[in-house]
């Protein structure tokens, strides 16, 4: 099995000019068919089906119209059923499937013209083309423009639409209908009444049926259950004695009453439903906020004088009171409740806003603190470095001063310890007195954070 591309399929569809006059989709399907034999696009049994790579089957024509209206580009066409990208189309399908679709029985499309033919779908085209006598054909006389049923066509090719006058009824009848008119339809034709066997004209048959004494009629009270059917002549005597006829007016009156009562009941039912709905609504509003309603409830009861006892604060009791109290109280309570609800909501919103503000303020303070702390650390470092420079500048002075005081230069070779910064130790080339150094060191450590 080989597949062809979508483009080939479209080209094939465009090239094949079908001369089929029967639209298989608009046929009247007589036999019921399985849903699986139904094209998911047109919902008819498959008509020349094709298959996609994903194994979904469609009518060729349906698939082509789906491809041509596909929104995205044609290469991206996806299966209408499963949206799998599809590249190719298989034209060959199992014969079993094709046969099952073909043998579904349909009515001849010219049923309205009188053809009663029911045939398997595959043969209906042949039936219409060759055998159906009811297919409207163009009149052999080209200028006429009317149509004639195939079986009525004149073998010599004459136009059958010429008007003829009926000798009996003086109506104008087309030639093709003339014979039928003469034999069956002409209103001036003589017929016999099937009941009394008198001969009358066809057009008077209807009137005659109303008056014919032999026709069988049923009793006028048949709708009330009288089973009697008699000839018109005998019926009159029966109707004088029929008990059901004399009861008739009474039955009618009863029926009318029943109808009006039913109508009233229906109206009452509806009103009842509406009231019940309203009641249920009130109940749910009360049930939703039993604790919250306690406060405004009491206020509502004290403000309305018709309450019987308003000193019962428990909620079930107050609910039953509300049920029994009049409309005015209920609406006031409802109004107050809703007011209370909306106020609660507002308070909630406000507290929410306050928390929000609080958080924002503390965040701002924290970041400001951090910045200030950093600044302070910087300043500290600067101060200590200045201090060290001053120390260094002062060192030679101190040294001179000490050496001038002491007669001999006492040299302490050992440096005071690892704490000495190289910047201070390097250039001094002499021993540094322990005391001021230690002081400066400890001072710096103290200020550092």
């Amino acid at each position, binding site marked *: 099995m080989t597949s062809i591309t979508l483009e080939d399929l479209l080209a094939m569809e465009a090239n094949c000019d079908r001369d089929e006059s029967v639209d298989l989709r608009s046929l009247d399907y007589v036999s019921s068919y399985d849903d699986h034999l139904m094209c998911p696009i047109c919902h008819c049994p498959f008509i020349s089906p094709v298959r996609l790579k994903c194994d979904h089957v469609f009518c060729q024509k349906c698939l082509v119209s789906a491809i041509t*209206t596909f929104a995205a580009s044609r290469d991206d066409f996806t299966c209408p*059923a499963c949206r799998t990208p599809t590249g190719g189309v298989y034209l060959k399908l199992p014969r079993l499937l094709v046969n099952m679709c073909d043998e579904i029985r349909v009515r001849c499309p010219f049923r309205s013209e009188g053809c009663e033919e029911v045939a398997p779908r595959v043969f209906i085209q042949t039936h219409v083309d060759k055998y159906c006598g009811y297919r409207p054909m163009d009149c052999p006389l080209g200028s006429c423009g009317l149509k004639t049923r195939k079986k009525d066509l004149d073998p010599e090719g004459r136009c059958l639409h010429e008007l003829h006058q009926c000798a009996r009824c003086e109506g104008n009848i087309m030639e093709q209908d003339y014979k039928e008119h003469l034999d069956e339809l002409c209103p001036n034709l003589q017929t016999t009444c099937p009941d009394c066997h008198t001969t009358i004209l066809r057009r008077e048959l209807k009137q005659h049926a109303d008056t014919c004494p032999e026709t069988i009629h049923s009793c006028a009270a048949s709708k009330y259950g009288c089973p009697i059917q008699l000839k018109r002549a005998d019926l009159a005597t029966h109707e004088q004695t029929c008990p059901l006829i004399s009861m008739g007016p009474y039955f009618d009156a009863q029926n009318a009453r029943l109808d009006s009562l039913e109508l009233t009941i229906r109206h009452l039912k509806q009103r009842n439903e509406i009231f019940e709905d309203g009641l249920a609504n009130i109940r749910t509003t009360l049930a939703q906020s039993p604790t919250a309603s306690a406060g405004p409830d009491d206020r509502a009861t004290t403000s309305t004088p018709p309450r019987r006892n308003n000193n019962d604060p428990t909620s079930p009791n107050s609910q039953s009171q509300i049920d029994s109290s009049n409309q005015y109280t209920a609406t006031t309570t409802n109004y107050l409740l809703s007011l209370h609800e909306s106020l609660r909501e507002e308070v909630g919103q406000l507290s929410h806003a306050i928390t929000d503000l609080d958080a924002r303020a503390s965040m701002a303070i924290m970041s400001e603190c951090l910045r200030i702390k950093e600044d302070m650390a910087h300043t500290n470092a600067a101060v200590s470095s200045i201090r060290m420079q001053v120390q260094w500048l002062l060192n030679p002075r101190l040294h001179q001063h000490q050496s001038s005081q002491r007669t001999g230069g006492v040299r302490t070779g050992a440096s005071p310890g690892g704490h000495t910064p190289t910047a201070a130790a390097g250039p001094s080339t002499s021993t540094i007195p322990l005391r001021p150094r230690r002081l400066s060191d400890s001072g710096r450590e103290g200020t550092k954070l």
Partner: protein
Amino acid sequence: MFATKRLSKELLKIKEHLPPGISIVKSDNLEEWLMDIKVLDENPLYLNETYRLKFTFSKKYPIEPPEVQFVTTPTPTSPTPASSDDNAITNPRRTIPIHPHIYSNGIICLDLLSSAGWSPVQTVESVCMSIQSMLTANSRNERPPGDKDFVSYNRRRPRDINFMYDDDNV
């Protein structure tokens, strides 16, 4: 021709059987149908509510998608007068369900109703079921963003609107 044939077949099937929660209200012609849908689970947003969908079919259905939107029925103003009771039978109250993809004028933003997402395999029944499940899956009690502007400015028909289908979670 194609559309009427296919729709009359669908109508026959619908009158025979419909999935639970879906019912057909009006199908006088083969151009506009009204369907009622209910959400069947316990979703509190749509509990005990019935919504009405209007399908408008073009001549090219099912090759072209139908126009589908929610519609309202006028609410009876006061329940007491008896005259409005008859009205309540033929026209029960119908509202627009709340959903982040349904505008308050009833227009539905759903890709399978656009020409890009539509497939001719879809039927009225399958569209109803898709919308039913779209409601079932929703838990957000909100309208789409920009609903007010869209509703007051939009005079276009649903099929002429270009929606962006950005939410794959629905």
